[in-house]
C-alpha cells in the first residue's frame, strides 16, 4: 500500500508488526491517550542505593526479552549504555530490546551484543557509526525502529513503546534518587530525553558517578519516579558531548548559503519583536544564526526564545538580551551546560514539552523559524537525513521532522552538491521529513520555495531574492555532476522510519 508520500509499504513487517501508513503531517487520528502506569515498587524507603548493576537488574526483575532504555545526553562520551549491556551480557541475558534516544560511534560494543543475541531489538531517534552500519547490513534480529525526538516521547507516553527498565545516566544524584544533569564530573545539562522514560518505565535505575548528600538540588527528575541508585566510577567522557560542528563555517560557499537563508528570514516578515528561532549545530546553520544575530541587533529586536540542542553561540545571544529565554532539550557543548547551571532563563525542557505532537502544546509549535539540514531532497521537498545515498544509515530525524512540522517557516540549507552527489533528486533514498512541512530550500545557487507557499515566494521575489523552481536547481546541479544512476530496489527491511505520530513514513533496506 502507498502512504501519503507515495512510498510502497507492506501491511505487516515481521518483527515490527502491523503498519500504520503515514497519512499526512496533520491528519487527525483517534484522541491520543497517556498510558496507565502500574506503580510496581519493592518497598524501598529512604536509601535506594544498591551495590552493583547486577543487584539492580535482579531487583528490577530483569528477564530475557525485556525492553531497557537509555538517554543520550552524554552523546559520543556516554559509557552507561555500554556498561549496562556489558553486565547484561556477562549475566547471560538474551533477546533484550534497547530503547535508546540516540546511538553514537561510542556504542560500537552493541554490535557484538547484536551478534551474540544479547540484543535483538533496537529503537532510537538517531544512529551513527558502527552500530548504524551493522544494522544496515542486517545484523539486528528485528527491524530497527526510528523515532523522532517528539515521536519517542509520544510513543512512551501512549504506551506504544513500553519500557521495562530505564537506566538513567545521572550526573548528580542523592540516595533517594533526586537527579540533575548540571552538576558533577559528567554534567551534560538538563536530561530532557530521559523524562518520559523516568515517568513511564516500570522500573527506573539512576546510575551516578556523583552521589551527593540529600537533597540533590536542583531536582530535575525526582525521587518519586526512581527505584534504585547505583554508584559507578564514571558515566563517561564529557568532552564527547560536543556535537559534530559547533563552529561557524568559514567555507565561502557555506557562508553564501547562510546569507541567503538570513535574507529569506528577513523577507518572510517573521523577524520582528518576539521572534523565535532554532538551528542545528552544523557550520552553515550556525552561520545563519550569526547573520540573524546581526539583524536582530541592528533592528533592536528582542526575541522570545531560541530552542533545541543548545550551543555556546545561542548562549551568547541569550546573554546579549537577543532572546528572553532558551529552551534546552540537550546541551551540544559545555558552554551550554555552564549556562544552564547559572541562568534561570536557560530553561531545560523534556522531549515531550519540546516536540510531542499529541500533548497540549509543544515548543516546536511556537517556533517562527527553523533551520534544517539535508542529505537529499526530492522535488516534492521530502527530505532524507536518515541514510546516505548508498542506503546506509547515517543519522535520523532527531528533531528534524518535529521542528519542520511545528515552525511557521522551515528552511533547509544545503550545498547543491556534495562530493559529486546532487542533493536534489527525483527520489530520495529514505524519506525522513515530509515535503509538506518544508517551506524553502536554500542553496548557493538559488532558493526554491515549496509551491504550497505561494505567499512566501511572493515575499521573497518582492525582496529581490534569487527564487527558482526546485527543478531549475536540480538542473544546475546535474549539469555539473551528471545524472546519478539510481540504486537497485531493496528487498529486506532493516529499519522502519516512523513519523512523529507513529505512522510509517518509510523503510530502510538491507545493503
Amino acid at each position, binding site marked *: 500500500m502507498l502512504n501519503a508520500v507515495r512510498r510502497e509499504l507492506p501491511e505487516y513487517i515481521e518483527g515490527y508488526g502491523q503498519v500504520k501508513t503515514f497519512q499526512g503531517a496533520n491528519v487527525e487520528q483517534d484522541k491520543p491517550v497517556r498510558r496507565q502506569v502500574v506503580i510496581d515498587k519493592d518497598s524501598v524507603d529512604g536509601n535506594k542505593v544498591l551495590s552493583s548493576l547486577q543487584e539492580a537488574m535482579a531487583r528490577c526483575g530483569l528477564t530475557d526479552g525485556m525492553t531497557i532504555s537509555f538517554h543520550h545526553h552524554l552523546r559520543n562520551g556516554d559509557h552507561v549504555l555500554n556498561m549496562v549491556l556489558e553486565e547484561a551480557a556477562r549475566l547471560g541475558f538474551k533477546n533484550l530490546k534497547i530503547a535508546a534516544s540516540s546511538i553514537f560511534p561510542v556504542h560500537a560494543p552493541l554490535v557484538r551484543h547484536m551478534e551474540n543475541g544479547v540484543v535483538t531489538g533496537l529503537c532510537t531517534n538517531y544512529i551513527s557509526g558502527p552500530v548504524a552500519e551493522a544494522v544496515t547490513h542486517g545484523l539486528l534480529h528485528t527491524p530497527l525502529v526510528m523515532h523522532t525526538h517528539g515521536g519517542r516521547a509520544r510513543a512512551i507516553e501512549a504506551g506504544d513503546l513500553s519500557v521495562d527498565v530505564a537506566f538513567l545516566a545521572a550526573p548528580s544524584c542523592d540516595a533517594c534518587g533526586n537527579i540533575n544533569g548540571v552538576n558533577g564530573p559528567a554534567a551534560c545539562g538538563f536530561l530532557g530525553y530521559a523524562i518520559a522514560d523516568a515517568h513511564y518505565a516500570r522500573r527506573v535505575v539512576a546510575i551516578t558517578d556523583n552521589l551527593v548528600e540529600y537533597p540533590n538540588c536542583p531536582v530535575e527528575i525526582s525521587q518519586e519516579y526512581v527505584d534504585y541508585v547505583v554508584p559507578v566510577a564514571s558515566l563517561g567522557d564529557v568532552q564527547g558531548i560536543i556535537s559534530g560542528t559547533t563552529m561557524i563555517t568559514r567555507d565561502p560557499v557555506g557562508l553564501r548559503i547562510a546569507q541567503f537563508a538570513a535574507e529569506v528570514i528577513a523577507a518572510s516578515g517573521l523577524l520582528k519583536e518576539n521572534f523565535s528561532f532554532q538551528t542545528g549545530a552544523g557550520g552553515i546553520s550556525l552561520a545563519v544564526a550569526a547573520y540573524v544575530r546581526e539583524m536582530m541587533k541592528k533592528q533592536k529586536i528582542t526575541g522570545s526564545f531560541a530552542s533545541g540542542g543548545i550551543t555556546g553561540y545561542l548562549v551568547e545571544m541569550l546573554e546579549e538580551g537577543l532572546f528572553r529565554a532558551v529552551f534546552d532539550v540537550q546541551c551540544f557543548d559545555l558552554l551550554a551546560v555552564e549556562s544552564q547551571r547559572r541562568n534561570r532563563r536557560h530553561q531545560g525542557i523534556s522531549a515531550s514539552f519540546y516536540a510531542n505532537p499529541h500533548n497540549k502544546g509543544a515548543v516546536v509549535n511556537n517556533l517562527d523559524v527553523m533551520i534544517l539540514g539535508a542529505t537529499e531532497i526530492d522535488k516534492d521537498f521530502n527530505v532524507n537525513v536518515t541514510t546516505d*545515498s*548508498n542506503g546506509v544509515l547515517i543519522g535520523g530525524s532527531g528533531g528534524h521532522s518535529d521542528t519542520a512540522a511545528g515552525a511557521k517557516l522551515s528552511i533547509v540549507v544545503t550545498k547543491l552538491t*556534495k*562530493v*559529486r*552527489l546532487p542533493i536534489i533528486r527525483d527520489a530520495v533514498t529514505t524519506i525522513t521529513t515530509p515535503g509538506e512541512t518544508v517551506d524553502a530550500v536554500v542553496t548557493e545557487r538559488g532558493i526554491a520555495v515549496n509551491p504550497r507557499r505561494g505567499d512566501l515566494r511572493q515575499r521573497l521575489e518582492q525582496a529581490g531574492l534569487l527564487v527558482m523552481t526546485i527543478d531549475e536547481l536540480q538542473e544546475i546541479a546535474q549539469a*555539473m*555532476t*551528471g545524472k*546519478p*544512476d539510481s*540504486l537497485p530496489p531493496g528487498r529486506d527491511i532493516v529499519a522502519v522510519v516512523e513519523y512523529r505520530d507513529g505512522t510509517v513514513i518509510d523503510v530502510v533496506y538491507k545493503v
Partner: protein
Amino acid sequence: MDIKHPAKAGSLESNDIYVMVEPSSEEGIVLELDSIVMRQFGRHIEAAIKETVTKLGIDNIRIVAKDRGALDFTIKARVETAVKRALEE
C-alpha cells in the same frame, strides 16, 4: 602509442581523483576504479577516463584511479596529466 613509464596525478582530497598509470602487458585499456560514488557514477567515470585516454592516442595502458567525488573536468585533467607525464622522456 604506448606510455613509457609509470606516472601519477591528482590527490585523495575530497572532490579530487588520484590517477596512477603504467605500461601494460595486456592489450587495451585496463582500468581499476575505486570511487565513493561508485554506485551512482561508476559507469560514467569509467567512460570519462577511457574516453580521455583514447583521445590522447594511447592504445595499451594500465590505470588505477581512486576517486573522491571529482567532477568530469577534474577527472579528465588528472588523467591527461598522468598520461602526459608517462610519455615524457
